[in-house]
């Protein structure tokens, strides 16, 4: 697992991709910080949320994940991985953590921002605000990485992978908007059974779409308390998609 992590992480920096991604993150974080700071909101948590608020993560993360498995399959380098005495899940984890490490590096400047704010701010904002926002955004990104990695494991071309990852991310982004288009008819004792079933069905769809909205879950990390259920939400998505990736790779051996 460590060997794969090392190679994968390094490969982000053997071409400009890794640098470009970090530059984009740093640019927007700095922009947000300068903007908030000068307008008198010395709240670094808001700076961190800025990345997901403008939807940047939905577009940058697919670039990080598109090559993870598709490229290996295209160039047949996966043969060296899958014939090595390593468990499949460790290969998947190695790759996941490589992308995750790059993503986590994006938030290094926010520590500096927080230090600036804490050292000279007259308005004291509890440091927990910063930490919760950081934890939330990192988990949020990790969930998107897991989804992107899974899609990458399904295809042979990074281009196909990025297109489908973008589609799935757009769906995640706008799922609660889709939900608002659906009106669930109210039912009472007297409504016929069939209509009751129909409205129940619509309710399930709406709940599902609302549940898909990563950003509304992330928003609750902006509160003063840390809700375990929100952490569990992201962690379970991460685990589910890592598992699915492993299954999809295993399935390929059998087809």
């Amino acid at each position: 697992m460590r060997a794969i992590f090392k190679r994968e992480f390094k490969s982000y920096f053997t071409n400009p991709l890794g640098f470009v991604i970090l530059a984009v993150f740093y640019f927007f974080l700095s922009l947000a910080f300068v903007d908030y700071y000068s307008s008198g909101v010395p709240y670094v948590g808001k700076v961190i949320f800025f990345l997901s608020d403008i939807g940047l993560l939905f577009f940058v993360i697919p670039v990080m994940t598109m090559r993870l498995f598709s490229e290996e399959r295209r160039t047949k380098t996966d043969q060296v991985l899958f014939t090595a005495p390593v468990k499949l899940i460790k290969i998947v984890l190695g790759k996941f953590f490589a992308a995750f490490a790059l993503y986590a590096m994006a938030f290094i400047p926010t520590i500096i921002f927080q230090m600036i704010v804490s050292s000279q701010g007259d308005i004291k904002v509890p440091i927990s605000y910063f930490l919760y926002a950081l934890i939330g955004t990192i988990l949020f990104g990790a969930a998107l990485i897991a989804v992107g990695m899974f899609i990458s494991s399904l295809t042979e071309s990074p281009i196909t992978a990025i297109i489908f990852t973008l589609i799935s991310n757009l769906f995640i982004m706008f799922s609660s908007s889709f939900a608002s288009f659906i009106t669930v008819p109210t039912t009472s004792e007297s409504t016929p059974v069939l209509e009751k079933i129909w409205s129940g069905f619509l309710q399930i769809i709406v709940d599902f779409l609302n549940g898909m909205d990563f950003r509304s879950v992330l928003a609750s990390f902006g509160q003063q308390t840390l809700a375990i259920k929100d952490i569990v939400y992201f962690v379970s998505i991460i685990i589910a998609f890592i598992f699915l990736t492993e299954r999809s790779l295993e399935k390929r051996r059998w087809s």
Partner: protein
Amino acid sequence: MIEVTGLSKRYGTYLAVENVNFSIQKGEIVGFLGPNGAGKSTIMNILTGYLSLTQGKVTVDGFDVAENPEQAKRRIGYLPELPPLYTDMKVREYLNFVYDLKKVKFPKKPHIDEIMRLVRIDHVQNRLIKNLSKGYRQRVGFAQALIGNPDVLILDEPTVGLDPQQIIEIRNLISRLGKNHTIILSSHILSEIQAVCDRIIIINYGEIIADDLQENLSKKLSTDHSIVARVICDERDMLAALKSVKGVQNVVCLGKKEQGSYDFEIIPEEGADVRAGVYSRIAERKKTLLSLTSSRLTLEQIFLKLTQATSNDAARKMLGLDEDSAAKPAANEDSSSFVIEIVDEIDTKEDEE
């Protein structure tokens, strides 16, 4: 060392490999020979655990590939058809990665240095793989397979795309490695198999149609063991004279191959040695014998003969193998086109030499 029983592999509805059985002892160099698409690579991919098997059992050094893949994989070094190289890495960096990936126990630097010396890539160790030529990439692939000093080496068409000089080098390397490794090698180039392998497994349409030592194969097939005589003489007279030699079943004139002489193919009765008789008959007639050659089949001819057969069952019949395996509908209409391919290959091979 390697035990394969009842191996089958199905891609959807297409049966790529069917009921393959063989076992390979420690230290053997075995050649998989077969036309393109015969199932050689599929079998190799299954042995190395890259693909799963649909049916059957494969064990490497007693470890089942399906049940105990890590132990089995640890014993195998695999060079796929296309060397699995990360082109954005340097040679040493790549080998270090493979070393870490395989969790090798030997000390790192001396082990990798030794392998690089063995395949002669130590002078390119700091170059990016993408800037290397095909021959060097192949050798880096070789080095990758050798890391961890596995007992079994599986090499899928190791000399494809190399120039003659490199082919000879790789062959020598295989022979050298064969002294203390079990090697399975696949190729559709016959001379290659002939040059390095003791034992040959011929695969066609996903089945094994022959599995024997090289010399046994040609012995089995050339039951008629005919000889060819080139004589300066008159065609008719000599034909009659040779036919009357004791033990001769039939004589066919092959025509003029050399100015002023005729070639005769002499087919003896089973088990008869007619060489002395033929010679004395020609001497009796005071004719000049230019050459007398045994037409024992070369590997190329064996291969053609077997794969030209309309079905695998017919090929087995040629070898005198019993057909205990169930008769299958022969889906081999295109075997003639394949023969053309092989002939082409022989031609190009001759050009190379």
